[in-house]
């Protein structure tokens, strides 16, 4: 397996893993695919229509962890609608994710979509 320097960098120095301190105006959701050996929990904080912060917790292979880091990093500052418009293709390109692993990244999409659903329910 080959790993791009971007994957290595995000594994060593992830930009937004962990848990948000404040629980106000936040939503979190998990998604997993046990057959792919991946699990992720995404937590976002909204202020009105804007995502002000986002964090994740994840279990899986390097591409999955780096993918979560790359995708979640881009959420802050975006409108909440961004949660359902994730550019997984861009992550694949930026991180050089091999074809057979793209399915794992879709699990991150699922978690974000679940977050979005929770936000719209609570909205």
């Amino acid at each position, binding site marked *: 397996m080959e790993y791009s320097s971007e994957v290595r960098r995000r594994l*060593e120095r992830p930009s937004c893993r*962990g848990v948000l301190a404040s629980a106000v105006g936040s939503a979190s959701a998990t998604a997993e695919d*046990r057959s792919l050996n991946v699990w992720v929990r995404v937590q976002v904080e909204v202020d009105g229509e804007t995502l002000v912060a986002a964090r994740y917790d994840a279990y899986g292979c*390097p591409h999955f*962890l780096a993918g979560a880091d790359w995708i979640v990093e881009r959420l802050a500052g975006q409108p909440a609608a961004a949660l359902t418009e994730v550019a997984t293709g861009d992550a694949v390109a930026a991180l050089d994710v091999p074809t057979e692993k793209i399915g794992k990244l879709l699990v991150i999409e699922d978690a974000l979509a679940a977050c979005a659903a929770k936000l719209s329910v609570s909205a």
Partner: protein
Amino acid sequence: MTARSVYLDHAATTPIDAVVAAAMAECMQLSGAFANPSSTHAFGREAAARVSAARAQVAERIGAEPESIVFTSGATESDNLALRGAMAARRARGAHLVTSVTEHKAVLDTAKLLAERGASVTWLSCDSDGRIDPAVLDDVLTDETVLVSVMHVNNETGVVQDIAALGERCRARNVLFHTDAAQSVGKIPLAVNRIPVDIVSLTAHKLHGPKGIGALYVRPGVSLAPLQFGGEQERGLRPGTLPTHQVVGMGEAFARADPASDSEHLRVLRERLWEGLAKIDGVRRNGSATHSSPHVLNVAFPGVSGETLRLAIEEIAVSAGSACNAETLESSHVLTAMGLSDALAESSIRFSVGRDTTLDDIDYAVQRTTEAVTHLSGFASSAPSWCTS
């Protein structure tokens, strides 16, 4: 490669001992024993003499007679020849084969092929320690059983099977007993003159000898059908020009192995490694710690993906699951057979030490692994229990 790199993958393959490499070099050039050992001229006789000395060295290491050693291209070929050769030669007796679910792929896949071609195959399972209870053979062997094949040392876990007890049960029922000893020679005792094993697969490259050369021990009186045709070499059991330098390398590697002192050295290294890693929260050792070959340590790091951990400690060369072939990334059949969940099997790493490993290497590996696991655990602080058990 980064500044410091440590090789802890000796169960996959080992570097060639310098003395072995020198003996091989002697058999390469015009002034040396380079010739075809089947040629009758002086050059050929010189090569033949080297081959016969090497045959004696290999035989002696396992307590066998030189005539019982057939050179092959490695343990994979030896396994194929053992299973298919025995089943074909004893077709009159029946078509029942007994083997275990924790075998190397060379045995597993050959057994599956034989099953496709009409053999009936009984698959023995192991306990959570990776061990097979020899008493199960009492219920399994029949008058149609041709062969039982159970490996000596497992390549993923280092777990040792009780081949003496298995062999005795086979002998009592007039069933042939084969063992794949690719991982055991030079690490734990193996003496075919002491225990009732009929056919043994051997390879040179796990013991600081060359890759691409192995052997099959065939007890005198046991006949096998050949797998390949086209020459009388190796008593018609294995054709092809004998590769003098490779054979000599195997002989020298087997002669240089000193099971007593080597295995003590390996055990010290392995236990120091385990002592260090055991301090990491939640780690577990896979496979029996008592019935184990001293060169292998298989450890699960719950909550951390094995693939991710291997990248994080990439300057330490280790394997995930079966390292014999990394082109397929499936979770280890050996660890799941021992009852590990898929996640735990995937989070496991095989460390294997060798003659060239130092205490410093071990301490460095412990330090780097500990740091990496600590760091990576931070990714999955709230992961559900299936990720960690």
